[in-house]
């Protein structure tokens, strides 16, 4: 059903689950997988800096952090899946929307929660933005959902 999957990760457990589901989907439908993450949080105010704690770190540290997250994510992908990784220094929302268009993705997989204590209480603001602006279907993966997304979005019957 899908050929070109985009998954956004941020190092959180929710993003990890999203990645797991994305890998499953890619495996079942023989799809390409692209993993995207942003270096640095969107600098839109003190609330976010407070919420994510670690966001006080400066640019290079953020980039290193993002690359570490991305490497960890890519390591989880089995060898038989074609995987692309992207670190962006743009705000993640714009970066994802731009990537959907340029990369001809046919689905975006995201976690249901953001990173950090405050933001994890609500739908991640990034997910929220994407689901309202994405031209392709957005799969919001729920950590506590009993079934795997693959069982729901079966590729070939």
């Amino acid at each position, binding site marked *: *059903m899908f050929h070109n999957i985009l998954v956004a990760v941020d190092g959180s457990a929710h993003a990890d689950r999203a990645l797991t589901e994305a890998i499953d989907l890619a495996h079942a439908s023989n799809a390409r997988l692209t993993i995207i993450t942003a270096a640095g949080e969107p600098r839109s105010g003190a609330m976010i800096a407070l919420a994510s704690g670690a966001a006080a770190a400066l640019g290079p540290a953020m980039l290193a952090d993002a690359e570490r997250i991305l490497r960890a994510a890519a390591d989880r992908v089995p060898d038989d899946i074609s995987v692309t990784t992207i670190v962006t220094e743009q705000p993640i929302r714009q970066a994802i929307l731009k990537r959907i268009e340029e990369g001809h993705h046919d689905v975006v997989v995201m976690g249901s929660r953001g990173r950090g204590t405050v933001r994890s209480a609500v739908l991640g603001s990034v997910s*929220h933005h994407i689901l309202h602006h994405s031209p392709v279907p957005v799969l*919001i993966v729920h950590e506590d959902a009993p079934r795997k997304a693959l069982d729901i979005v079966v590729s070939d019957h």
Partner: protein
Amino acid sequence: MRFCGGAIAPFVAGKLAEHVSVASPFYVATVMTAFSVVVLWIHRDAFATTRTIPAGAGDAAPDTVPAATASATPVAAPLIVAVGGPTARQVSAMAVPLARARGAEVHVLHVVESDVLVGEDAAELETAAEARALLDACVAELRESGAPVTGELLESYGTHADVARQILRRAAELGAGAIVVGPDSRQLTIAAGVTARIASHAPAHVIVVNPRAGAIGRPLAGVAGPADPATIWDGSNPGR
């Protein structure tokens, strides 16, 4: 309670102003208002009442699996398609390939809002007949998939947020495998919209399809926009 407060407030305000400071009644009022908001929030469920209207006999597919058996048969987890607003039919059309691929039961939910709090808005709300017509159109759209489709109208009272609550409640009852929703029909800045609430609190994975996003200014290469939404799923993509 309210009238007791009203009875003692003038007296207390006078005493406070006299003995503490002129501004103090206002501070006390601020604190009490904030406190009342907390109390209302904690007991918000007390304000929601629910009623389920069963779908008309002619609409329901006769051979669908009863919802009560959902826990016993994990393979038959239904696909929930929550429809509403101007994009309802397009959302249904976009869910067709998904429904076809799964083959399992599809349950279409539409919530009829009765806004008892805002009287002036009453005229804008949907009539039962309109809601029925919308649901029927969406059910017809999804029947294209060949999967058994059931339509159901739910009712919500009070706030817009109750719409999301009704859908989530029903989805949980049905043992939903996944929930398909369209974009939020209202532009809400502070309060989360229905879609955001569903995406946030669902007991299952949520697939958000946005028929209008293409038209809003992010056209995707190879996709003709709302005119042919189903092609998004069909592997018309050059990648691979």
